[in-house]
């Protein structure tokens, strides 16, 4: 796995701990929703190290509510690229809950969805090896505009509706890009 974050390939400090594995004593870890909801749920926060949870695409994001302000990361699973449920989960975390931690795309993560993922609030991407890693840096610039309005999105992609309103994107800038 390679981790793409903030426009760069980076090392991953996080460790995903499957349900049948013992919890490591130290270091940032990602657990399943089942583990978080289980008997040792509260215990997970006691070591004082950052905790993340991995939500599969059928699991409701609302289930995280009791823990959200203490979670540093939410990983959202894409079982297949056509399964778009995690897009809504990310949007709900950012827009409704104001979640400020990392939202990580895991599973079947394709470069063609990179711009969409960024715009709903994902900021880290676990990409399988051999998946044209170089194209991740450039694909975003293919269509650097979007219509939809979202005051929580922070991406290089500009909202056309907002730009029209504010006049913030000037004709000169458009020509320069051509």
């Amino acid at each position: 796995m390679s981790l793409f974050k903030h426009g760069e390939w980076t090392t991953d400090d996080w460790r995903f701990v499957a349900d049948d594995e013992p919890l490591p004593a130290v270091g940032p870890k990602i657990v399943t929703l089942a583990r978080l909801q289980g008997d040792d749920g509260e215990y997970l926060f006691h070591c004082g190290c950052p905790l993340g949870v991995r939500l599969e695409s059928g699991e409701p994001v609302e289930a995280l509510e009791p823990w959200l302000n203490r979670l540093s990361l939410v990983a959202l699973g894409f079982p297949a690229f056509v399964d778009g449920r995690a897009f809504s989960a990310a949007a709900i975390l950012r827009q409704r809950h104001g979640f400020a931690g990392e939202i990580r795309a895991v599973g079947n993560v394709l470069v063609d969805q990179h711009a969409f993922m960024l715009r709903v609030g994902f900021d880290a991407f676990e990409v399988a090896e051999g998946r044209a890693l170089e194209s991740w840096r450039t694909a975003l610039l293919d269509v650097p505009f979007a219509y939809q309005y979202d005051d929580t999105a922070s991406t290089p992609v500009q909202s056309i509706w907002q730009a029209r309103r504010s006049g913030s994107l000037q004709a000169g800038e458009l020509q320069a890009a051509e």
Partner: protein
Amino acid sequence: MYRYDEFDARFVADRAAQFRDQVRRRLDGTLSEEEFRPLRLMNGLYLQLHAYMLRIAIPYGVLGSQQLRQLAMIADRWDRGYGHFTTRQNIQFNWPKLADVPDILDALAAVEMHAIQTSGNCIRNVTTDQFAGVAADEVEDPRPYCELLRQWSSLHPEFSFLPRKFKIAVTGAPFDRAAVKVHDIGLRMHRNEAGEPGFEVIVGGGLGRTPMVGKTVRDFLPVAELVPYVTAIMRVYNRFGRRDNKYKARIKILVHEIGVDAFSELVEAEYRAGDHAAGIELAVGEVERIAAYFAPPAYEDLPERDPGHMARLFENRDFARWVRQSTAPHTVRGYSIANISLKPIGGIPGDASSAQMRAVADLADRHSFGEIRVAHEQNLVLPNVPKRDLFALWEGLVEADLGTPNLGLVSDIIACPGMDYCSLATARSIPVAQAISRRFADLALQSDVGDLRINISGCINACGHHHVAHLGILGLEKRGVESYQITLGGSGDENAALGQLLGPGFAADEIVDAVEAVVRVYLADRRGPEERFLDFFRRVGIKHFKEAVYVPV
């Protein structure tokens, strides 16, 4: 009509350039067909039975004459000299070469058109009343809201990987020409007691294998709240719509399985949970900006009855017949809405040659402020014709073989491409449509039969909308041979109803006789010409037809 500003133009041009690169990578082998498939589908490119098919969006069915000429050019240069207008107000080209598609998309972008989201599990082209903005019975012009939805849904980051495709239709008139009750979301504009415009929001209609009439989830949604409210519906669908079975993945199944009340509560809860103030303010500003493009053209002050036109009506029976059948009341005095039938007797429903496209473009420039509409019945419309000009328009149409006065009659058939083109089809549709059309070629007979709509689908996916036809035909395959079922009594208007099955299917060489038998029953037993087929059917029921059509051996 709407015109692109610099942002719209850049958006579409960038998208075309992106696809050019993807096609290049497919052609040089970097991308496999499996990897390329989702990318081409997001740009309207299908792989059909014999060739690629490119479906081009005609947003809410509005076309400028320059755009129609460009479609004619594309047909000549990169296809086989014709195009096919679809039931979703789009146009399809059936024979493009993959290597040419990037050039076609550039040619489209040059006239402010694209093929974005004409396929795939995303929000498809928004459709509306083909008479929008000019219909005498209109309450509110739906076009600015259609354009708002077009922009909002284009490459939507959250809703581009839905459980299944998603179709939205809007009507601004009480007489529903947009079939809003058989769409995933149907929006009917009306006014509340205070006179403010809003939408009745209807969800979960659709045809296909499991036809359903949509249910109302909001009686009155203020127009300003359209985008955030539709967003809430889409989010509920994206999260909870079924993904385990593609035949149960449309929103109608979700609404049906959990019930409209539970569905509505999910949507309202989702809507209440968000803060929409800033989004609403932005969308309201956008609608205002967009609406300016739909300001009425420079209409002349004309008399209601043009003396020259009246004289022509009196002198020329063929012209009078065409006017009676093809024109509709316009909101401005002295003007008419003129329908152009793409259903010549024995022809292929919805097909137009490049020469016909150019002829219509020229006629639109001369007589209709350069504007054309595409109707979901696979016909064209010139929305702004002075009555004074109707005779000249008719002569031009006749010359282009576009003057068939059969609009709304039994030979004005909607048909899917069927097994002649489509890889899903189980039977042929086009030859059946052609044969029925020839059987009822006599215009006097058609006039006598009156308002009887026939729709034909070549498989259970129902692209030919047979469920909502007065007389629907569904082509199936039984033990290797085509078998055609007849349904009766369907309707796609404001009183939407699904057709009822007449009985066992008919072979390909029997179906036309069976259709004629149904029509003969109606002609023989109706109270008079004023009792329309649908009214007759509702009075006598399916059993009456059954007994007459299936004669005991």
